[in-house]
């Protein structure tokens, strides 16, 4: 190893096989639902220094979201049941992308729907919207045509959504995997085959909490999504499995709170990372990652981020002979 004197190259293309590509200056991306529409954090951090950001999940129509309480703290984690509060795709397109078009940092739009047709419709509407750099498809949603069974738990349904979105847009398409699938690798391979440019994982695990004084669930929605450091071991395992099984870029997330956490995900095979819950507690974590990842690489003698991607994952890249 030894020291390199130049600044390590931490840029990454998350859609290498897409002509519209998705080149990030650095691999640090705030996660969907945890960064509003990008402007909320502007008072806290220098948003333009991020690699990219993912917007709050957008749905075909306006949603007011779930009633209170929507969040609860759990050991080293939190539950949320926001209920996809958002203005709906039409108002969203009028309101946010024009602002993003003037920004340096690429904006990725997260979309959620309850039918393949609605995913396809949203992707089509976003295709040529200036200010939108890529689409992240949240498949941890109930499929109303399959009795509410989650798209992301079934390989065929996941592929159907991916194919429909792929058909509807030339934008880079990232499919965000659900940790609830019995075999996340099967889902990842199915969406890769269906044309995804990249996969991101994990979305939240389903959890709940009970208020023993009220003898009732804490969350009005009963269950909520578990995120934060608590889920990191599960997220890292899934990233490792998926990165060893697909050849498109993998974006890792789940509990990342510091540079060492991020390095674990890179070594497991992630090309970039997303950060959600940790930035609620400490927005500065985002800046520490932007600065700290290249600093860690330099201190450990690596010239580029790609040198560590997958190094702890023997199934990653070419098999040793």
């Amino acid at each position, binding site marked *: 190893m030894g020291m390199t004197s130049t600044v390590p190259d931490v840029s990454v293309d998350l859609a290498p096989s897409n002509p519209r590509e998705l080149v990030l200056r650095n691999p640090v991306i705030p996660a969907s*639902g*945890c*960064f*509003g529409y990008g402007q*909320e*954090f502007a*008072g*806290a*951090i220098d948003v333009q220094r991020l690699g990219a950001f993912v917007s*709050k999940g957008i749905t075909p129509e306006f949603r*007011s*979201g779930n*009633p*209170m*309480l*929507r*969040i*609860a*703290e759990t*050991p*080293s*984690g*939190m539950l*949320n049941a*926001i209920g996809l*509060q958002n203005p709906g795709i039409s108002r969203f397109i009028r309101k946010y992308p024009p602002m993003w078009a003037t920004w340096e940092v690429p904006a990725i739009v997260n979309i959620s729907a309850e039918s393949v047709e609605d995913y396809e419709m949203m992707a089509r509407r976003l295709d040529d919207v200036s200010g939108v750099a890529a689409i992240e498809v949240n498949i941890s949603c109930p499929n109303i045509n399959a009795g509410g069974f989650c798209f992301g738990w079934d390989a065929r349904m996941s592929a159907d959504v991916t194919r429909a979105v792929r058909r509807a847009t030339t934008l880079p398409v990232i499919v965000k995997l659900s940790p609830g699938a019995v075999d996340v690798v099967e889902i990842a391979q199915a969406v890769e085959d269906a044309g995804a440019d990249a996969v991101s994982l994990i979305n939240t695990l389903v959890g709940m909490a009970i208020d023993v004084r009220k003898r009732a669930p804490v969350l009005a929605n009963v269950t909520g999504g578990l995120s*934060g*450091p*608590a889920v990191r071991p599960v997220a890292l395992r899934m990233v490792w499995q998926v990165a060893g099984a697909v050849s498109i870029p993998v974006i890792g997330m789940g509990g990342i*709170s510091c540079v060492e956490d991020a390095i674990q995900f890179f070594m497991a095979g992630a090309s970039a990372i997303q950060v959600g*819950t940790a*930035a*609620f*507690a*400490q*927005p*500065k974590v985002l*800046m520490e990652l932007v600065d700290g990842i290249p600093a860690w690489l330099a201190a450990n003698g690596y010239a580029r981020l790609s040198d560590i991607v997958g190094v702890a994952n023997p199934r990653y890249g070419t098999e040793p002979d």
Partner: protein
Amino acid sequence: MATELGTKLEFMGEIVRVEPVMGDSVLTTFVAPDWAVRAAEPGQFVQILSRDPQSTDPLLRRPYSVYRTDISAGTMTVLVRPYGRGSAWLCEQPLGAVLDVMGPLGSPFAVRPRTERLLMVAGGVGAAPLLMLSEVAVRAGKQVTYLMGAQDAGTLLPASELPEEVEYVVATIDGSMGHTGFVTDLVPAYLGWADQVFSCGPEPMFRSLRDVVHRHRLGDRPDVQMAVERPMACGIGACLGCVVETRRGMRTACVDGPAFDMDELIWG
């Protein structure tokens, strides 16, 4: 000493004073950067990391209303009641400990320019934002009546904390000081006098205040601002976890609030 953290809202502030108050609560005063001290307005809050920074549990910051700022000393004060894990930790932090603080956050109470007479209705640690509002209002030459309710005399805010100009009227459940009963019993007498009412306290107090106001005021004057409590994650409008249902839709307690016009709130 206050250390800034390369971000525009987070800073590290050393605790320079810890005073017991209102029974088991404490007034914790910490150093804050000049921009934070100057920016803070009544009704705003700070989010304090309430754990060892090496630990990830409890994960989220805890919001505390700004109780007082001192621009010349460069400090902020919060009033903390030990309740669960976060507040217990905070109450135990000794002089010299360094807090990780984010803020000031939220929207201040909206005092209309022509308002001359402010009525405060405080319950428990809800006293905090109303103390700061009282100080600012008195400094601006306005008249303040501060009503406070508590279990007993020992858990009331000491009169010495308030500016002399404030009329301080209290109620205790056990009758050990002032009116025997609820603070909201005191309200009707002041509704004709007040231009605006500002309130902070527990949910049952808000409900009773609402009923009293509905019963006793004339039309929709005076208007009532209620600073509500919601569990918060981000504190900056990004997570939509802290929403309050209002006639104008779901609004965030952390950015649009904590104070809302009583008449805008939809009561579940």
